[in-house]
C-alpha cells in the first residue's frame, strides 16, 4: 500500500484568490462584531504586516486599504470535495482528512508510472487549478498526513523506512489526540520515536485506548478507518462576482475558470457532459443559458468556447451578481477514434467539434443532414435525419427542392419530360394528385413543375434541375 497525501494549507484563501486575476492585500475574517479576526491573509497582506489571528480593528490600523472577505466554511468544504473529485482520477480510494486529501496509489502506479511521475501529474493538476499544496507518500494514510505536515515532497515506501521517518517527528506535529500531545512533552516525551518505544499498557492506562488506536493507525498496525470519498453525480459550481457586471465580456474570465473546473471534475470521474446550464444571477431572478452538445465532451477549451458562444448571444436584463454552472446529465465519455491513415491535415479540428462550434453560434438546429423517407410525396419524401432509407428513385428528381410549390409565372414552359403522376396520401388527409413534368423556362432554367392531371396550365414549380 502506498498512500499519497495532498495537504492544502491555504484552501480557504486559494478558493477566493483563484478567481481574481489581480490580488491586492486581501484577508479572510471570521467572528462577529469587534471580535472579528483574520483567519487567512494573502502574500500582499502579510507583507504589510497583517497576521493570522489579528483583530480586524488592529489590521485596519496597520493598513488603510485592503479587502476583507468573510471566511465561509461551506466554501472551504466545497473546494475540499472538489479537489477530492479531481484526485479521484488517480485512484479509486480517496478520503478526506482535515485540510488534506489522501489517496491510495500503489495500484495506480501501474497505469501512471513511477511515483515521481504521478506526483508531478498531481502537482500539475493542482497548479493548473490554482491551489497551493504539499504532497508526500507513505504506507499509511495517517503517516502520509503527518509527513506532509512536516515537509513537502517526502516519500516513504516501506514500513521499515516509515518507522525510521516517524522517529524524529515532534509530537506537536504528530496529529495525535490533543490531550496526549499536550501532556506528553511535560513528561519528557518530545518525539514520536520516544512515544513508540514506551510500553503500551502504561500508555493505555494513562491516556486511554484512543491514543493507542491513533498510533496503530499511524504505523499501519490497525486499519486506517477512513470513509471512502464518492464523487457526486452532479456538478454544481457557483461563483460570486466581485462587483455587478453589466457586460458579457466581463463574465468570460470566470467562465473560463468554471469550465476548466468542470473539465477537471469530469476527468476525475472519467465522464463527459452533454448538457449544462449557466445561471446568471441578478438582484431579482436569474437568466438561464442552456448549453447542449451532440455528444458527451470534457475538453476544457471546447466546453469554454461553446459556453462562451451561447453566452455572447444573451441580452442581460440586469447586472449579474453571481454565476452558477450546473451539470446534471453526466454520461460516459467515449473518446473519438482516429484512423492511422487519415487524409485530414495534422492540425484538423474534428468534425464533431466543428459541428458544435457552428451550433453554438448559429443555433441548435443549424447543422443537419437530410435523408429520404418512404413517402412518395415530395414534401414528405425527405426529412432531417441521420439515417437514410437509401431508396433509389427511378423517375427524374430535381437537385433543388422548394419548401412549398410556387406558381410558375411568365410564358408557358417548354416540356422536356413527363408526365409522372403522383396520386397518393389519401390516408392522412394530405392527398395530392399531380402530374409532374421536367420543364424549361423562357430564361433557360430547368424546373420541376406540376399541374392538375389532364391540364397543361396553372403550372406550379416545385424545384430546379440546377
Amino acid at each position, binding site marked *: 500500500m502506498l498512500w499519497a497525501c495532498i495537504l492544502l494549507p491555504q484552501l480557504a484563501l486559494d478558493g477566493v484568490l483563484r478567481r481574481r486575476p489581480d490580488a491586492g492585500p486581501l484577508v479572510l475574517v471570521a467572528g462577529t462584531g469587534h471580535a472579528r479576526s483574520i483567519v487567512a491573509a494573502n502574500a500582499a497582506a502579510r507583507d504589510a504586516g497583517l497576521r493570522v489571528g489579528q483583530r480586524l480593528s488592529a489590521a485596519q490600523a496597520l493598513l488603510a486599504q485592503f479587502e476583507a472577505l468573510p471566511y465561509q466554511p461551506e466554501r472551504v468544504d466545497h473546494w475540499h470535495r472538489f479537489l477530492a473529485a479531481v484526485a479521484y482520477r488517480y485512484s479509486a480510494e480517496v478520503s478526506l482528512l482535515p485540510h488534506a486529501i489522501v489517496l491510495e496509489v500503489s495500484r495506480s502506479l501501474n497505469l501512471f508510472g513511477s511515483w515521481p511521475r504521478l506526483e508531478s501529474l498531481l502537482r500539475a493538476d493542482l497548479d493548473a487549478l490554482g491551489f497551493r499544496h504539499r504532497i508526500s507518500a507513505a504506507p499509511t494514510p495517517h503517516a502520509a498526513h503527518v509527513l506532509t505536515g512536516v515537509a513537502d515532497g517526502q516519500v516513504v515506501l516501506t514500513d521499515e523506512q516509515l518507522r525510521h521517518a516517524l522517529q524524529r517527528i515532534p509530537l506537536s506535529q504528530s496529529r495525535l489526540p490533543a490531550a496526549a500531545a499536550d501532556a506528553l512533552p511535560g513528561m519528557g516525551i518530545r518525539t514520536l520515536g520516544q512515544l513508540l518505544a514506551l510500553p503500551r499498557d502504561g500508555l493505555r492506562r494513562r491516556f486511554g485506548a484512543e491514543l493507542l488506536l491513533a498510533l496503530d493507525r499511524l504505523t499501519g498496525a490497525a486499519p486506517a478507518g477512513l470513509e471512502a470519498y464518492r464523487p457526486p453525480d452532479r456538478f454544481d459550481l457557483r461563483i460570486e462576482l466581485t462587483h455587478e457586471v453589466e457586460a458579457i465580456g466581463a463574465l468570460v474570465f470566470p467562465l473560463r475558470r468554471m469550465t476548466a473546473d468542470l473539465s477537471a471534475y469530469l476527468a476525475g470521474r472519467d465522464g463527459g457532459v452533454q448538457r449544462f446550464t449557466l445561471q446568471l444571477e441578478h438582484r431579482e431572478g436569474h437568466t438561464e443559458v442552456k448549453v447542449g452538445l451532440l455528444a458527451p465532451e470534457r475538453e476544457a477549451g471546447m466546453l469554454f468556447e461553446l459556453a462562451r458562444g451561447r453566452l455572447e448571444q444573451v441580452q442581460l436584463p440586469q447586472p449579474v451578481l453571481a454565476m452558477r454552472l450546473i451539470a446534471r446529465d453526466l454520461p460516459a465519455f467515449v473518446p473519438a477514434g482516429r484512423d492511422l491513415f*487519415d487524409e485530414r491535415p495534422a492540425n484538423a479540428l474534428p468534425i464533431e467539434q466543428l459541428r458544435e462550434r457552428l451550433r453554438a453560434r448559429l443555433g441548435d438546429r443549424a447543422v443537419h443532414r437530410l435523408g429520404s423517407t418512404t413517402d412518395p410525396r415530395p414534401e414528405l419524401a425527405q426529412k432531417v435525419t441521420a439515417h437514410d432509407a437509401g431508396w433509389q428513385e427511378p423517375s427524374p428528381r430535381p437537385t433543388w427542392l422548394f419548401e412549398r410549390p410556387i406558381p410558375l409565372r411568365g410564358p408557358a414552359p417548354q416540356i422536356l419530360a413527363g408526365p409522372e403522376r403522383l396520386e397518393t396520401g389519401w390516408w392522412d388527409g394530405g392527398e395530392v394528385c399531380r402530374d409532374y413534368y421536367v420543364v424549361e423556362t423562357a430564361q433557360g432554367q430547368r424546373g420541376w413543375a406540376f399541374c392538375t392531371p389532364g391540364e397543361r396550365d396553372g403550372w406550379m414549380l416545385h424545384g430546379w434541375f440546377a
Partner: protein
Amino acid sequence: MAAVVPLSNLLDARRVWRGRAEPPPAGEQPTGWAALDAVLPSGGWPAAALSEILLPLDGVGELQLVLPTLARLSQGARPVVLVAPPYLPCVAGWRQHGVDMRRVEIVNATEADVLWATEQCLRSGSCAAVLAWPRQADDRALRRLQVAADGGRALAFAFRDRRHLSNASPAALRLELEARPQARVWVRKCRGGAVPAQPLPLPTAALH
C-alpha cells in the same frame, strides 16, 4: 533563412507560367467533366483553393458542374458541407447523381453568418468541400475564404450572382454560366494558365 523551394514545385503548382505549354498533369480534383478538365490548368478544380461560380439565375445547371465531384468526395473520409443553400437539396435528386447524402452536412446560417460559417468549415480541415451561397461578399471576404481553403486543404465553392463578374476576385478559378441563347460555361479566370477564349457547352445530365 527562407526555405528553399525546388523549381519543379513552383512549376507543378502552376505558379510560374512558361511560354511553351506543357501537357497538364493529371489533376488532383478532376471535375468529372472531361471537356472542363482539359481546359483547366490544374486538370480539374484548383486543389485547396476557392472556385467562384457566377450565375445569371438559379436553376441553370450550376450544381451539374459540381455534382460529379461531390459524388466522388462523398465516398471519402471527409464530409461535404453546404452553407446556406438557397433551396432544400433534394435527396432523391442528389442520390441520382451518386452523392451519398449521409456525408453531406447542411448548415443553415443567416446572411451575416454565412461567411463566418464557411470560413470555420474550410479552416477546420475536416471538410472535403464547402459550398457556400454568400450574398454579400467583398474582395476581402473572398480572400479570407481562399486562405482558409488553403489552410484546411479543402475545395471551396462560392455561388454568386453574375453581376459580381466585374469586381476583381481572389478566387483561383472563376466560371460564369450562361443560360441563353445556349447553356454554356465561360472560364473567366484560372490561376496558372491562360483563360480559354471559347466557352464550353454546359454539361447537362441525362434526365433519368
